[in-house]
């Protein structure tokens, strides 16, 4: 158990995780360099979200190590991981998950408010970020009055407002149309590059992944480049699915 080099802000070594017996990820290793945008790609069910959860300290891997800035995340207690998520990580998922009873700027300022920042500072910072994301005019609205795209941008503002070290973006463009999708991705990558924020971006479509510096393709919970990943059903071995499928319905 040796700390990874300084250039890697986030590092996972052969991480295994299973959801109550059903397989999640098995033996994934990845090193994320400071300030880079890494895309984790793969079809649905390939373990992208699980990997992001393990890297982001929301799940504890069954096996393997996760390091953030030279600190082992896999051996942290629940409280320390909560604090790490609050102070150093940002999260944006496929759903905006804004709190309906708070206004847009309050939602965006939530990470600062929860961390105990003064009301005035939090409001100013949140409104600045909303302006940057072109939704400054909606700051006093409730999330219910927003379109999907606007809500997703508000969620992005919430993920960036405390200038975290790493932003985890789990299919952030899934509910959007193409124009809005490109816009949100551009905003995310630009903001990350100008503020030196590392981004781990999970996505199943090629276009989204193209916005990243580097790609980590996953398939069935393993790195897709790994020759053992495809198992007995590998192309050229037997016709696809024949060996695995013995059911008759």
């Amino acid at each position: 158990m040796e700390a990874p080099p300084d250039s890697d802000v986030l590092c996972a070594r052969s991480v295994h995780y299973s959801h109550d017996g059903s397989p999640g990820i098995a033996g994934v290793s990845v090193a994320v360099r400071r300030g880079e945008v890494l895309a984790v790609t793969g079809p649905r069910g390939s373990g992208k979200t699980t990997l992001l959860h393990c890297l982001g300290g929301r799940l504890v891997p069954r096996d393997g190590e996760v390091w953030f800035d030279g600190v082992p995340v896999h051996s942290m207690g629940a409280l320390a991981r909560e604090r790490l998520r609050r102070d150093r990580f940002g999260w944006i998922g496929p759903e905006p998950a804004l709190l309906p009873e708070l206004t847009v700027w309050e939602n965006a300022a939530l990470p600062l408010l929860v961390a105990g920042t003064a009301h005035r500072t939090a409001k100013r910072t949140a409104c600045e970020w909303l302006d940057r994301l072109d939704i400054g005019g909606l700051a006093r609205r409730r999330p219910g009055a927003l379109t999907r795209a606007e809500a997703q941008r508000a969620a992005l503002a919430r993920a960036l407002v405390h200038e975290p070290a790493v932003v985890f973006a789990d299919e952030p463009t899934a509910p959007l149309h193409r124009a809005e999708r490109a816009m949100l991705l551009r905003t995310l990558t630009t903001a990350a590059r100008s503020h030196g924020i590392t981004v781990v971006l999970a996505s199943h479509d090629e276009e989204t992944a193209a916005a990243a510096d580097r790609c980590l393709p996953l398939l069935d919970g393993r790195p897709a480049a790994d020759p053992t990943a495809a198992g007995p059903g590998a192309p050229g071995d037997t016709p696809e699915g024949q060996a695995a499928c013995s059911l008759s319905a």
Partner: protein
Amino acid sequence: MLALRLTRGSRPLVQLRRLLVAAAAAGSGFLLLYVLAEAAARPAGSFPRLLWALLPLAATVHLAVRTARTDPATRPREGMDAVGLGPLHLALAAAVSTAVACTLGSAVALAAFLHLRGNLGGLPFDGAGAALLHADRPLPLAAALTLLSLTPLAAAAAAAALALRPRTPAAPAAGLPWGIALAACGLAVLGHAGPGGRALPAGWALTAAGLALAGPGLAYACGALVQAVRPGALRLLAGRTLQEEAPRLGRPLGVLCAAGTAAIAAALPGRGGIGAPLGPLTGPAFALTVLCAAATLLAAAVEVRQSRAASRAALADLGAPGSVLRTAATVRAAALLAVCLPVCWGVARLTSLALTG
């Protein structure tokens, strides 16, 4: 049959809530039977007695409806909708499971009543119940069954009609002026009737209805106060949630306030002019009403908790510690207590003033 299957398969906590409804139905059914036996023995003054006995019944129906709403088996679910069991079918299921719980309660009430009268062979408690329940006179069976079926039918109908109807968000603060006006009318009627007057039940009913109507507005005002003036995360979460959930939480809160007001008024000198309208069973009837109101508020709190699961998950994603959520819940409860207790006490003082002045 589906309703029964859904009922049978649910978790112990849900079964406990249904049991609570059955117990409340048993209590109010017993009271109705007692009123019936009294009316058969002493017809004079039986109508006001029946009116007073309707109060616990109303509280029971309220509890049953709120419980039906929190019932996980009767909420629209993705899987159920996909197999064609939409909101309408589930409303029916809610009605059936509510009716089953209430019928069970009514049956228990009838059995206990007959047993205490000695009709089922053997006389418990040295026949103490026999005199109270007029065992010497025959019980009009048709009337008894009609009264007993009142709770299940009313509760099931209300549950089906209300529990799963699509709800439009109502402005919670709008009820406040009406509630205050209604409570003021009630106080005026109380003052006009005087202690022991014939219009006394009407006065009390108006006051209680006013408080119940004002409940959502009160809860909303509480929330507004909590989140006022540069709130941090804690006050923001506590206050806004209270404002958001005021329509759901407010009505049971108002009913509990009304029950509390009656309790304080009965404890103040003058006894709120109520006397003992249900004879020796006044105390138990009152306790039943208060317990029903409290249980209804708890059921509403459970409903609020269920509806906020997504928000809790979002906050956990942000890394908000669990203590923030727990403290916010404590702040909400404290704020509600801090507003409702003085309101109850104030209205109770006003009723006693109206009755003695």
